[in-house]
């Protein structure tokens, strides 16, 4: 880093909050994807004013700035692919306010998801998106990636809860969007533009979130299906039944086999396993809902159906789903975790298609995911030091994206575009949409300093 700029940064954040030492540069080169690139330096700002000063400096010197939360992104979104300054927001981690009466929480971007959850618990409230990375990922990161989770089908994603933001623009101006009111149609919806923008338009420095009362009762059931078609029909019919489960998860054959090979859970090796949870405030209510779900399972030739009666049984039913990621993560030295998403009527086709792609490219792909909102996680397992396997993995990914789009779906339901899916943006978005996105980026960030090289915005 240029000595003059280094001194200017140190002036802004203080010596202890600036680093260009090797150990930091290596750790800031990565996120949870397979991408990496070294930054030139990193800073830990403590408030929006410091962020504004840093951006003003970077903008005039035309140096890339990459906002970073916990670095758990799965698409290389926080990887400084063009070098520059890492803006680690984890020190801005204060919960500013919780107002149950106004049904909102105001937080700084570095607050970790689980810390807000813990703070809301005594009030019986929660912030529903619940990403599986919630113990580590930051709310700023959740907003910038529009994170979702298990409960997406019933409760939506981060987007549905962001009422307003404070954002620092690339030129250093500080802007407030949205309102603290529960609803607002005042002007363009700038808030939503920033949700899911992957740090390419502005740096989120404060978030106002809508919060929900937390249901106190749940019921859980599990079913296995010999045929994918039956499982697919069951998923569709549940929606017809008028019940929206709080979770509806699916595990594919390959995943079940992998779990069996690596644990003693002894699962039936069927085409699909579905796990449903309903929630509410009394057991009668949630049991009523789960009975309807079970009825649908049975009508669609489920081989076996189980309902949990005790906490222990609930835990047992979830065991397979909960172990899936860790089991698959241990099989090969490398994997990519995709998150293609399709309309629910196409889930069975998507699963079948994934199996075909796996066979065609001779590469192991195990699938699990959120059947309730059409979001699947095919996990492609390979050895990253074997160029031939890398090539097959890439070819399989490309086919997977194409399949999702052919099924009226999307490249990514929750993990974002970043670097990994940037080459496929034009597969999903028509030239007009791409043109508009590029113009939006140019308007906010004419010098392309904020998280450059992401989302396929550069032609």
């Amino acid at each position, binding site marked *: 880093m240029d000595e003059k700029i280094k001194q200017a940064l140190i002036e802004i954040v203080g010596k202890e909050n600036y680093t260009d030492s090797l150990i930091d540069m*290596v750790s800031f080169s990565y996120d949870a994807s397979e991408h990496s690139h070294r930054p030139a330096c990193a800073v830990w700002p403590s408030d929006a004013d410091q962020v504004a000063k840093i951006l003003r400096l970077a903008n005039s010197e035309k140096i890339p700035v990459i906002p970073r939360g*916990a*670095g758990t992104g799965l698409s290389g979104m926080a990887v400084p692919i063009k070098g520059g300054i890492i803006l*680690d927001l984890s020190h801005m981690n204060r919960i500013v306010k919780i107002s149950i009466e106004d049904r909102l929480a105001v937080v700084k971007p570095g607050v970790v998801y689980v810390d807000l959850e813990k703070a809301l618990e005594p009030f019986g409230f929660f912030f529903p998106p619940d990403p599986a*990375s919630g*113990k*580590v990922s930051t709310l700023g990161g959740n907003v910038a990636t529009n994170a979702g989770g298990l409960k997406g089908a019933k409760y939506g994603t981060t987007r549905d809860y962001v009422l307003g933001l404070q954002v620092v623009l690339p030129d250093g101006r500080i802007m407030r969007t949205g309102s603290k009111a529960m609803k607002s149609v005042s002007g363009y919806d700038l808030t939503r533009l920033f949700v899911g923008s992957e740090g390419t338009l502005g740096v989120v420095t404060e978030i106002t979130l809508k919060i929900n009362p937390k249901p106190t009762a749940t019921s859980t059931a599990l079913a296995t299906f010999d045929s994918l078609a039956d499982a697919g029909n069951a998923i569709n019919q549940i929606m017809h039944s008028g019940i929206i489960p709080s979770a509806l998860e699916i595990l594919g054959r390959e995943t079940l086999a992998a779990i069996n090979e690596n644990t003693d859970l002894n699962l039936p090796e069927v085409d699909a396993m579905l796990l449903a949870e309903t929630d509410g405030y009394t057991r009668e209510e949630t049991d009523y809902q789960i009975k309807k779900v079970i009825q649908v399972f049975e009508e669609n030739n489920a081989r076996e159906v189980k309902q949990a009666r005790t906490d222990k049984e609930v835990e047992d039913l979830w065991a397979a789903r909960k172990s899936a990621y860790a089991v698959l*993560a241990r099989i090969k030295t*490398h994997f990519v975790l995709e998150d293609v998403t399709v309309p629910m009527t196409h889930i069975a086709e998507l699963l079948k298609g994934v199996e075909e792609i796996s066979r065609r490219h001779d590469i192991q792909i195990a699938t699990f995911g959120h059947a309730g909102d059409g979001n699947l996680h095919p996990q492609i397992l390979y050895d990253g030091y074997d160029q031939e396997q890398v090539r097959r993995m890439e070819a399989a990914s490309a086919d997977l994206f194409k399949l999702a789009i052919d099924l009226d779906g999307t490249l990514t339901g929750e993990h974002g575009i970043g670097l990994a899916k940037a080459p496929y943006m034009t597969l999903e978005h028509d030239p007009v949409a791409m043109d508009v996105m590029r113009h939006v980026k140019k308007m906010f960030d004419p010098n392309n300093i904020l998280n450059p090289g992401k989302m396929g915005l550069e032609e």
Partner: protein
Amino acid sequence: MESKYEFEEKYREQILKCSRCGFCQAVCPVYGATLRPALNARGKMLLLKEVMDGKIGLDDQLIETLFQCTTCANCFHNCPSGVDVPEIIKAVRQDMVRAGSCHPAFEGMNEVLEKHTNIYAEDEPEDFERVRNRKAEYVYFIGCVGSYREDEPTMAALDLLDRLKVDYTLIDEVCCSGVLEDVGFSIKEHLAEKNMALILETGAGTVITGCPYCFRTFNDKLQYSRLREAGVKVVHITQFLQDFGFGVKTDKRVTYHDPCDLGRHCGIYEEPRNTIRKIATDFVEMPDNRENALCCGAGGGVRGAYAKNSIAMARRRLEQVEEVGAEIVLTECNSCVHNLANAKLRRQKFRVYSTTEFINELMEEAE
């Protein structure tokens, strides 16, 4: 591919299996105290991956993170990919020392144990007013921290054993030197030999250790296998005490801090709790307990080498003591007692004890 370092031979696969998920960030005490990702388990694994790829060298620049790990194993316990970070770190430190890169504090510790019998280079052993090296049923092995830094808890533990009429002896013990293996060096054979000879001379069938680390060293390390061959059992005092009744009770609110060396590393969670429940009517758990317990920050040589961060880690643990409103925090490791007590702020009114010291105090008061 021929590997340049020994750690690669053993741990290459595991290091590559780190998927960079970052889950360890939620539990790593060093990260928690510093919010610096390079010091987290993931940061450490990424550096080692780049070392294996030949992108960076295993040199002095890496000392700050690779020698700043308490080996608490909380990352390993929570790692979806099963990466045994503390064991990897220990192996890497050996390679670093061989390559001439080591934190000066540990070089110093190794040198001290060349010349002296304990890590503090104290020449006058505390005699704890007891006859040493006599024939007895049990040997009580104190450990360096208990001998030279936390002598009050040690005196209390001995008083308690007397009250319980246990036939034990102290020996002219020397440092078990297990810690050297964690910080890049090896156990000193001559120290191990001396301890074993003294223990065997007493004719004792069981060694009771006051220190969970000595307990692990005696039980697990090759250099101490002669004890096992001679049929001498080694137990930690918490295991020994659980069969006793004490006839005293406190109504103060008590909580328990699981030392990493006893908990995550040995799976000993219930024995101390069984004992504490006998004497405390109001026993509460901290939010992170048993296998999820937050490290006190003293282990892996971190207290010596990175004192400020070590204290910061202890403060985070003490916040949990406050959170549950405990008046007494008990633990089973003198290193934990030492670090937690040092980190305690004046406004924090609770007290930190080893379980034995607390029980002894209750019995003393009752007399």
